């Protein structure tokens, strides 16, 4: 398997009121193509910060982040933005979307902005509709974003993250604002994407969500203190329960 993302000695420090706060400490991490990695840990352990640093949304204080063979620290803001636009997808806990655009326009917006996209506007729109159909929200394309449910909106966010066929999708607690049913729907969609070959890195507090991932990293005080390899999920109920049980046991050992 090719390595998509690699972090070496990654450190992130914030200075607040002249006091240094080391949020991430010397993290080494490798994510291979097709992985579905969950990042877990107590609140304030640095999960989201790790996601932002490796995705180029935030600059690292020390260490290296190599994405798809490129050292992100060497890229300027414009180049980094282009990498995020063309090669990464993002899903957030809150279903952030642009309020002046319809659901479909929000989905195709990154593709319209991508210089790699040589399609006509109509072709891009068609591709957006196809993605929506794949995620079961094809009926809400022309709706305003206040006219759809939270689950539908998060699936629309997944569509947006997929529109430029990224190499990796970063998800920051993607089910955190959803009920169990919607949460399952969203995770199933992410699993489908992963099964189709897209790498996913996901921050979560929910063991049920993490149990569907192939690897689980456990962070405490800015350091990865443990890693559990669960292997790819075949989506059968029995296997999920086994994985949850296995993961919960491991999490207990980590101090969860």
């Amino acid at each position, binding site marked *: 398997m090719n390595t998509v993302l690699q972090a070496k000695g990654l450190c992130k420090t914030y200075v607040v009121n002249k006091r240094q706060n080391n949020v991430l400490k010397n993290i080494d991490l490798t994510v291979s193509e097709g992985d579905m990695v969950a990042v877990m840990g107590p609140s304030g352990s640095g999960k989201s910060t790790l996601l932002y640093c490796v995705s180029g*949304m*935030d600059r690292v204080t020390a260490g290296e982040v190599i994405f798809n063979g490129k050292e992100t620290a060497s890229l300027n803001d414009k180049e980094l933005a282009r990498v995020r636009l063309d090669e990464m997808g993002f899903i957030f806990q*809150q279903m952030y979307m642009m*309020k*002046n*655009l*319809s659901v479909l326009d929000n989905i195709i917006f*990154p593709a319209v902005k991508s210089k790699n996209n040589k399609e006509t*506007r109509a072709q891009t729109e068609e591709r957006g509709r196809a993605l929506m159909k794949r995620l079961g929200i094809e009926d809400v394309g022309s709706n305003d974003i206040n006219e759809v449910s939270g689950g539908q909106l998060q699936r629309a966010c997944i569509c947006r993250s997929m529109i430029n066929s990224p190499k990796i999708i970063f998800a920051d607690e993607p089910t955190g604002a959803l009920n169990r049913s919607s949460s399952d729907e969203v995770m199933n969609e992410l699993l489908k994407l992963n099964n189709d070959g897209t790498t996913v890195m996901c921050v979560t507090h929910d063991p049920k969500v993490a149990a569907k991932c192939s690897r689980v990293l456990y962070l405490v005080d800015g350091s990865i203190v443990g890693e559990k390899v669960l292997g790819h999920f075949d989506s059968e109920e029995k296997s999920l329960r086994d994985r949850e049980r296995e993961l919960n046991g491991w999490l207990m050992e980590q101090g969860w």
Partner: protein
Amino acid sequence: MPYDCELEDELKALDGVDYVGTEHHYCIESSKNFTYKGSKMDNFIDIAYTISDEEMYLKFYDEENNTVDGVEKGCFYSNAAFIQDIDVSKGDIFELSFDDNKLSLKYMGVIKCPTIAHEATASPYLLFDAEDIKFIGEHKKNDIFDDKDVFVNAADTEKIDKLVEKYENAYVMPRDEIKEYFLFDMVAAYIMMMISAVLMVTVFVVLRFTIMFTISEEYREIGVMKAVGVDNGSIRSLYIAKYLVISIVGALIGYAASLPLGSMMLDSVSQNMVLECGSNALIGLLSSAAVVALIMLFCYTCTRRVNKLSPIDAVRNGETGERFKRKSLLRLGSSRLPSNVFMSINDFVSAPKQFGIITVIFTLCLLMMTLMSNLALTLKSENMAWLFGAAECDAHIYDTTYFVDAFVDYDNYKDILAKTDIMLEDIGIEGESGMTMGFRYEVDHGDKTANEFCYVSKGLKNDLVTADEGTMPQKRDEVAMTGYALDDLDAEIGDRVSITIGDKTDEYIITGKYSSFLNGGHGIFMHPDVDLVENNNFQSMGVNIKFDGDPDDETKDEYIEKIKKAIDSEKVCTTSELVKTATQMSDTLNSVKQMMMMITVIVTLMIVILMERSFISKEKGEIALMKAVGIPNSSIIAQHTLRFVISAVLALIISTAVLMPASNAVMNFVSSMIGDVTGIKCNYDPLEVFFICPMILVGVTVIGSWLTALYTKTIKASDTASIE
């Protein structure tokens, strides 16, 4: 004194008359009778008049608005018309000469008095010591232009009207009409007030937005307060108290700043009139209190939403249950616009109220600039010449000494035109000359009688005087009248009026109505074949010259210089210069226009910076999201800049569409206050009003919004984590 006192005696004998005072005016024929700094003066057109300090029946004020009670021997005061276009200081010495008789006089400053106020045809008035007046009376050349004002206090003005009708060269002006003397000054003051009003509206709009956005920024804190049980009244009172303190401090600073600024603005419009300044401080305080009250009202309405929000809504930054409230109107998928342009237009149409108000303010600012430009240009344009009784031609000789003989003996106009034609021939210029002259005559219609100025054009055919209604006189027994003259006589087109010219009374049919600034809009235009008879009430804008062969501007200037040399006078000008001199407003409006340009730059920058800053603050989440998904800073900045540019361009289109109708409406409104004038079509400088002014607006908008939009760079992609 060479004055007849019969009128005063008859007035004193009338019942109800308790006071009669006479202010005699000696005339000083020309500005050339004065020498200043070694040169003969040529800065004013009209005859100068003297007033003796023993005959000051009205109140005279100096520049500081102190009452002037008398003048020392060897000194004099003047009105503004005397010192126009020259740089004079108090204490400067002028020399008044009549041939070899000379009198040295010390200048004491400007005097203000309603009857000598500056208006379109204002003459210079000079206030002397009684002894110095005697010198003038003894040595001046003729007394044809000498006149007098008789001030009467009476309960019944009708009796005075009847008495004065007997006197051919006298007319009555009630006290109320004296205010008309200040019309040009009032117009400048009105324009200043209009500008202030627009500025105030603009500032209040910006203020309201600022308060609204500041409060919406703090919804989260409001939510927390509501969640812990603080009641709505307490929360609102917190904000109201905060803004009360801010507005009181602001109002006090504004009040302090308004004192010198207000005086400066008052000074700029009160060169000739005394404005009541005693209550300025009180008005300032009341205005400041009104501003505080208005801010409190804004604050009250802006905080009203606190009542409607549940704690959790407030924590969600004011979103009421629904996550978002605005509706998408355009479709990115079906649009062919570049994405940045699309996003900007989409933002604009999604928040029509906010961007609409910005557009309206931009439109007002642009219109104020372009309107001033049009008005200033029109008030010095050749198109206005006919309103002053001057034909639109190539050159005007407005030196009174050149054509004064026509008023001594009317028939002399023929000699004046003949000598002009010979002079032109002598200096090798082919052209023809003409004069429009007016004398005041008694006009009767039914039981109505009025003393009206009757004008005749001789020489050049004055085609430019056109009738607003009906036709200009085509036959000898036809006349056209201004609306005011028609009102004076209770007449209308088609009626017959009797006009007494000299000893002869003839009937004339009214064929049309025309517009005029002359004599406050009261006038009658007669057929060129009519011959007038001179009397003491006359008007003329001088000799008009039309060059043959339609020469270019450079050649015209060359010819004018030749004429100046030939008649030994600097008082020769183009029609445009004549109108500019007559209105005296073009320069004022040009200054106002330049001020408007500066104000527009400041207001536009203020609006753009404040609004854009507010938008950035409100859209922080979206900006962070765009950055997170990989939209570069340049795209975000372009989108934010373009939204304001769209407003500016829209303002440009609207103002372009309404500019000319608005200019014509304002010009006709202003003109109707000065004279009886309708149907003026404003001139415009296409380069200035359709390119330079709009480019100033768009340029300032682009620079202001782009610089402010750079602030979006401080928002990071990772800020999505901290956005609720």
